[in-house]
Structures are given as C-alpha cells and as structure tokens.
C-alpha cells in the first residue's frame, strides 16, 4: 500500500484559504475557552467527577471536525472539544453533559466527555479505549449495505489507545472491508503518565499502516495549516474509496490528563520543545503575520467567545437535575422485557 505523507511546510498556506483558516481558528478558540470554563467550574466544585481537556490538541481536533460533512460519522475522544464543535456539537450539549442536566443528550445518565448523538453521527464514547472504532466500522458497513455511498467515519484516538486489542481488531476489520475510516491518532507523548517508550517500540506509529494494508499520513499537530490539509486529504482519500486512512499527529497535551493531574511527569525540556508549542498561539501568530487579523481583533474574538460561552452555560446551570423518582429505570427499550423487581419500589 502506498503511504501518503504530508508535511507542514512553507507552501502550506497556499492551499488553505483565509476563510477556512479563520473558521478553524474560531472553533479552536471556542474549544479552548470552553475547556477553561469547565476547568473553572471544576475548581469551583460544580462538576462531579473528572474534567478532561484538549489544550494543545485543538488544531488536530478541529481539522477532523471540519474535514467531515454533517452526514459523516465522528467518534471523538476525551480531548476533542474543538472537533466536536466544528462537527456541530453545541456548547449547551457539552455543558449539559458535564453538569448532568436532564435536558442534555445524556440526561445525567452519563457525563463529562461521554456525550454524543448517535443519530446525528456523533458517537458518545464508552470509556474503554479503542472500543469505538469497530462501532464506526459498523455504521460505515451498514451504509454500504444500504447502498448509501460517500460517508466517511472518523475516529479520534490517543497513542496509548493503539496498544489495545480493540484498536488492532477494528483497524484490521476496516482494512479487510475497505471501509472509509479515518483513524486519527494524537500522539501527545503520554498516556496519562506513561511515556511513549513504555507504550510502543516502533519508530513512528505511522509505521503500523503497512501491516494493516492501509494508507497513512503524518502531521505536525501543532500546525493548524498542516492539520487542515492532512485531514482534508485523508478524508478525501477515504471518501474516494481508498480504504482506511491512518493519521498520526505529533503534539503535546498542555494540561494534565484530567484537571486533577498536574502532569508533573512532563519535563520542561519537552514543554519547551517544538512539540510543546501551543497550536492556538501559533495560529494567532499566523493570523497576525498574514494580516488576516490584528491583535485587537483577536482580543475582541476572545471576549466575544467568552461571553457566548458564559451565555450558553449559565442557563444550563439552572436546568433541572434528573429526578430519580420520575426517572425510567429501564435498560431495555422493549418495556415489557425490563424486570421490575420488588427492590425497585421505594421502600
């Protein structure tokens, strides 16, 4: 199988239009500020359980969301606020899930990053890493059986998740079925605290592609232009019938695994390396350098976005919590097959 390796470079900006770049930047900014908002709510004790952010990974994530059509399928992971927004998730859906609102898509039943709307092509992850890939395969497979063509399914993954059996079985399955799957691995150098040298031994995760018979793409995950181009290319290849595409991005997460984690295991050297550059900051520099925006404009966008987010989150905080007494405690959709045991009545 051929490998399509795109690299970020000086000529990149000739391909991505200012409009597209700006759109991407605005989603990145919104994702970053939404993450900040959740971090603040977490510190204020307003969120039960963990908060997981995508700081430093917005360029890659937004590129996934923007490369997809609304009729495509997207299975984001814990660091994909940007890709979710770009794919169409609302700030309210995110906030409702973190806050457990009964009006959210998960109705307080599931929380934080475990959110989505399967019928709209946005899959709500289960926690078990790697488990969503074969589910996306199934959707793509079903569309083909139904005679629907042109759908692409994108799945986001951390490099740690490539060690799971689920990853392997699903990527192989997609390759055998030649499904239009785009598997995007954000190699942020750590899985929780575990560095890459304790996770895998290959020189580059993109080296895995040949072993599955799929095409691969490597990209600098801090470079928005490169990410936009690479994801666009990968999605286009998948859509054109070239089978699964493995995209591997190099970057660093600029936060803890969750907000409870100070990421003390990330060395200053690494933080100060090229990997540790902040993609949002780089994008802003690029915008200014290109004169597509000046710093005043950036400041306006930022404060506008903060207001937008505050406006979207504030009413969610007043929304009703789920009520255990009116809750339907039924795991099956077929009502009469649910067991109602004596214990279940209020005692």
């Amino acid at each position, binding site marked *: 199988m051929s490998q399509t390796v795109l690299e970020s470079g000086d000529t990149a900006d000739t391909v991505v239009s200012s409009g597209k770049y700006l759109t991407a930047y605005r989603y990145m900014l919104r994702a970053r500020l939404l993450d900040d908002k959740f971090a603040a709510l977490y510190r204020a004790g307003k969120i039960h359980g963990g908060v997981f952010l995508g700081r430093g990974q917005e360029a890659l994530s937004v590129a996934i969301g923007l490369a997809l059509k609304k009729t495509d399928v997207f299975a984001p992971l814990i660091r994909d606020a940007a890709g979710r927004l770009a794919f169409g998730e609302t700030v309210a859906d995110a906030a409702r899930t973190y806050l457990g609102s009964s009006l959210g*898509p*998960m109705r307080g*039943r*599931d929380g934080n990053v*475990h959110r*989505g*709307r*399967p*019928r709209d092509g946005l*899959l*709500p992850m*289960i926690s*078990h890493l790697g*488990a*969503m*890939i*074969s*589910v*996306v*395969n*199934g*959707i*793509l*497979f*079903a*569309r083909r*059986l*139904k005679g629907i063509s042109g759908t692409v399914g994108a799945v986001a993954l951390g490099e740690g998740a490539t060690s799971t*059996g*689920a990853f392997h*079985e*699903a990527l*192989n*399955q997609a390759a*055998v079925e030649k499904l239009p799957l785009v598997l995007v691995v954000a190699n942020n150098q750590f899985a929780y605290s575990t560095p890459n040298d304790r996770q895998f031994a290959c020189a580059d995760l993109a080296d895995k592609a040949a072993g599955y018979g799929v095409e691969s793409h490597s990209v600098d995950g801090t470079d928005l232009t490169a990410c936009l181009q690479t994801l666009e290319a990968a999605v286009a290849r998948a859509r054109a019938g070239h089978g699964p595409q493995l995209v591997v991005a190099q970057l660093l997460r600029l936060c803890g695994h969750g907000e409870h984690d100070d990421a003390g295991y990330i060395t200053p050297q690494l933080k100060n390396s090229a990997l540790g550059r902040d993609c949002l900051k780089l994008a802003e520099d690029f915008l200014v350098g290109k004169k597509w925006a000046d710093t005043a404009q950036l400041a306006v966008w930022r404060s506008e976005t903060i207001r937008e987010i505050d406006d979207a989150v504030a009413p969610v905080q007043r929304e009703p919590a789920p009520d255990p007494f009116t809750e339907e405690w*039924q*795991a*099956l*959709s*077929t009502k*009469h*097959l*649910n*067991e109602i045991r*004596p214990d279940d009545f209020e005692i």
Partner: protein
Amino acid sequence: MSITYLDAIREAQAHALRDDPRVFIYGQDVAAFGGAFKATKNLAVEFPGRVIDAPISEDAIIGMAVGAAIEGLRPIIEMQFADFSTVGFNQIVNQAATLFWRTNVPCPITVRLPFGGTSGGGPFHSQSIEAIYAHYPGLVVLTPATVEDAYSMLIEAVAIDDPVIFCEHKFLYRHLKAEKLPSEALPIGKARIAREGRDLTIVAYSAMVHDALEAATELATEGWQVEVVDLRSIKPLDTDTIIASVARTGRLLCVGEAFPWGGVTAEVIARVSSEGFGLLDVPPQRLNAKDTPIPYHPNLWLAHRPTPQTVAAAARNLLRQ
C-alpha cells in the same frame, strides 16, 4: 420430515433474512462454509452479500454489530463457540448493553452463542456462561430448550429492539428433532410448563430441561408427579410462572449446567425464597455443574454436570422430606 434444533436455527435465520432487509449475519466461517456447526448453511447463496465472514476478532465483531444497529440494521452475530465470547465480552456488556440507556437509541443485535457441554469438548468448548451476561443490565438472555423455541425465539430475538444473547445448546443441535416448525409460540419472557405435576417443581433451562423431563419420567414410575418448568428466557426471568408452580407443589429444585456460584439457579432460588417463602414446604435445592473447569474425558464430564440420574436423586431427596 424431521427438523433438528440446528435446522430450526438455520430456518429462523432464513426467515429473518427473507422478511426483513435490515437483517444480516456476521461471524467466523458463516458465509460459504455455512458456519462451524452449519447453522448458516446455504444462507450466503440464498442471501448474497448478507452473510459475511469475519476475521478472528470477537471484540470488533460485536462493535461492528452495534454500529450497524445504530444505523438501523439488525445484525445476527454467530460466535463460533460461546466460550470465545469472553474476548468480545467488553463490547457486549459495556457497548451494546448500555447504548439504549445512555443515548435512547436502541441496539437490536442478536448474538448467537453455541454453548453447553458435549463429551470431549473440554474446558474451552463446553461452557455455559449465560449468567455473566444476565448479570449486566441491558441484555436479554434466551435459552431455548426445544426445536420449536429455537425457531420462534430466534425470530423474535431478531425482531426485538434490544441486544439479545441467544444461547443455543450444542448438544441439542442434532439430538433434538421435531415434526414441523411452529406457527405460534409463547412470547419471550414467559416460561413454559414442560410437564405438569403436583409433588415437586423442577425449574430448568436449555438442555437440562430434557434431563429434568427424563428424571420426571423415572420418578413417575415411583409414583411421584413432578412438574417441570422450562425457563426459556433467563433474563427476564418469569418469576410468576415459577412461583405459581411452587404454589401447586410446595417443593422446588432448580437445575443448571453452569458453574455453581451465582447464576440462574441462585437467582431462581433467591426469588422464590424471597417472594414465595410461604409456599415452600421444604427447603429449595439447586443442582449445578461442579466448581471446576469442564473436563475433557467423558467419565469426568458426565460426573461434572447434572444428569437425569443426579436430577432424579436430588428430586427424591426433596420428595422424601
């Protein structure tokens, strides 16, 4: 004409494929080869493109089924042996079983598990692991004991909007025969009185129903009238029918082929003890397989699981109290 339990499973799938364009079959060797047990024989020819060979990837097989279900299809998955479903366990109990509750999107998949002991199967081709699935919320777990039920329950399983674990007993595949396929059936969730009696209730499911019936026949020659309840579905479990039977007999023996800790027999005894305590004239009893892996040699295998003889002996113990 005579139809085996295995034929019934094949026919039920043919029926489902014929009636509903959303149905397809996915599993190892199910296509041209017709499956390790021939349960999908010729279906790939009859329904081109809808009976599909899978790689040896149980996790991805179930995940793929869930995705197809989200997209509105109704996959039937064949596991080559129930024992290998442990490798796809996570996708069954955490992906398929939680989908509806989490997202309000139903997950109509049917996972066929060829299960249960046959002589010479050994520790990894003989297991009865229905309990690990019944334990998790969000799954329907079926255990047909007859040719008729194998047919009608599989058709109903595919039609249900929820994930169904369909436990089909390998020993029954070729040993059980019927004259014709049924046109009517009890709905899923209802147990069946397989034999009426007034002295003792034996609750059983799948192959053990036949061991219980054989024991009942033997006990009849001794003057005992033993009622046999065939659970059909172990989740949901038809507590009402069981309790109504115990109300008639006052005595309860629950028989299962699975490992002894927890499982169907524990659940049945616990329910009857809690909800039908006053109906019991003597302590309820269980009979399970032994608490070791399932042995290969037929001598050991026969001693490991209940047999008509040990069921009858346990029943006599209860009847004499």
